[in-house]
């Protein structure tokens, strides 16, 4: 089995207000094309883990490897470049750039990466919007879209560079059940049809139970499953 993400004994402390171990030697392996959800009570460290996995948080002990590349110890600029190319994000509070149109929002990470020229980027971005049923809203300003629509545009933005992993922090946390269902269907479709790896932190039981694998955390440790299925 091919791992797209692997961690080795990731440990992290919070120092404020007092020293506190949030992550305790986390070993995690994620397969390519897997739809994985991270669950657990508030404060169990699941979000913290996700931000370590996302390479945005570099203040940890242990090792992180994505797509065969060791990321621990790299500089912020290298990591930014890596994220641009290999990781897509979907957050709870959609976080589109409000002054830009839906299409421009999707194009920005691709324009940053410069893998294609502008015209190709525009047509690819439009394709992604179409895939998510948002093609009619392409020229609308992001601030004029509804929550569910914004989240779909955010997903399109997350996948525009064909990343190795999509990371979601409560991607349905701020949506009604109809839109939650929609987003879940999109994620499952991405994973199963397009073999896109997805790691999502969620509180939503229904959402999690329909994913390929649930990793449950408590007090900074993975409590279920004990071992990865591939091992």
């Amino acid at each position, binding site marked *: 089995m091919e791992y797209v993400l692997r961690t080795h004994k990731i440990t992290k402390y919070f120092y404020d207000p007092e020293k506190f171990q949030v992550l305790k030697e986390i070993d995690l392996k994620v397969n390519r094309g897997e739809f994985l959800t991270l669950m657990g009570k508030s404060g169990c460290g699941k*979000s913290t883990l996700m*931000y370590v996995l*996302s390479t*945005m*948080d570099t203040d940890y002990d242990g090792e992180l490897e994505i797509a065969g590349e060791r990321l621990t110890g790299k500089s*912020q*600029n290298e990591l*930014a*470049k*890596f*994220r*641009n*190319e290999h990781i897509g*994000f979907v*957050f*709870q*509070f959609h*976080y*589109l*750039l*409000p*002054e*830009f149109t839906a299409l421009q929002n999707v194009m*920005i*990470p691709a*324009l*940053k*990466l410069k893998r294609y020229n502008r015209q190709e980027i525009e047509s690819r971005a439009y394709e992604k919007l179409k895939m998510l049923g948002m093609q009619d809203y392409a020229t609308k300003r992001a601030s004029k879209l509804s929550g569910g629509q914004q989240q779909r545009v955010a997903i399109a*933005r997350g996948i525009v560079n064909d990343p190795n992993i999509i990371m979601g*922090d409560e991607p349905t946390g701020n949506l009604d059940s109809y839109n939650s269902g929609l987003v879940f269907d999109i994620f499952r479709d991405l994973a199963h049809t397009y073999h896109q790896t997805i790691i999502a932190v969620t509180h939503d039981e229904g959402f999690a139970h329909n994913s390929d694998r649930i990793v449950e955390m408590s007090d900074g440790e993975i409590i279920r499953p004990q071992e990865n299925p591939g091992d």
Partner: protein
Amino acid sequence: MTLQVEIAKTHLLAKPKQTLVAMLGVTFGIGMFIAMVGLMTGLNNFTEELTMTSSPDIHIYNDITQARSSILTEVNPDGLNLVYHQKPKKETLRLRNALQVSEVIRRDPRVLGVAPTLASQVFYNYGPVQLNGSISGVDILEEDKLFDLRSKMKSGRIEDLKANAEGIIMGTGLARKLNVRTGDRVVISTPEGYTMPLKIVGTFQMGIGTVDNIRSYANISTVQMILQQDQSYITDINIKLRDLHQAKAVAPEFQSIAGYKAEDWETANATFLTGVIIRNILTYSVSITLLVVAGFGIYNILNMTIYNKMKDIAILKAMGFSGGDVKRIFMIQSLVIGFVGSLAGLVIGYILSYAISKAPFDGGDLISLDHFPVNFDPKYYIIGIVFGVTTTAVAGYMPSRKAAKMDPIEILRG
């Protein structure tokens, strides 16, 4: 167009009012700077020009007020001498060997022209009117070389003086007070009591009341005759240098050649120059204050923008924008505000300067001036835009760096 520029542009255009207010701060600062500098340097140049027309670069004369050593010291050089309240010696203002000294100085390569002259206090009488004034005996062609008299003639020609041994060229102010015009005869009387009728062959206007209202020019020989002096009687030597800023350095050299006091124009016009310095200090301190205020405005607005855009910055960083990229986005914004604002400021400054230069201003009797003199030197426009852009760059740098250093996780976790 790079992505950073595009994002910066969208940010600026999304809030046009806020952008405009930030720009207006710079525009106002630079506009006032240009207008003030234009007026102040215009005034400075004007006064400097006036100064130059009324005083030579170096002026050699016999300074009889200079302390002289007492006869006691000459007799008893090693003793402890104390002479209390010495009376000035009866001395003439004559410069000995003045013409020879003039020749020597004329050969100096730094010198453009040398004009030996003699001047005296006189009374001008015309009918019942009697006015106090002065008369300068000059070689009018040499004098023209030094002070560009030709361009200041209001009537008559300077050559007419050369041709007429009994002619004088009179200041316009003096002529007006006496109610005389070219062709009239006035009677001159000296403090010694000698009188002589002279014919007015022309009038001149220097633009300075203290000259135009009292002075006349006549030939050297005429004045020597009025004063009943011989043909070698010269009281002043006026020197014009190729570079007037050398005057201060050259003056002591000429003083030792001539054996009389040589005064440079800077010393002679110290009060004028102090005025120039004070005006410069005032101009620059007010301008800098204006720009600093504008800079704080930009700092504030950019700080606010960045505070409002925390979420955007966080998401940009998550998507793979480095700290440098984020910094660039906000620096571009402040530089655009600075550049466009400064450019508008130059236009406003030019319009203001133009308006000031057309405003009527009565210089009174002292100086002939009907409008404010305004300097439109492009140098100050370049300084203005460089200053404006630099200030905004500095003001924008601090908030931009803050944005670059911001940790996205804190924002994204909510």
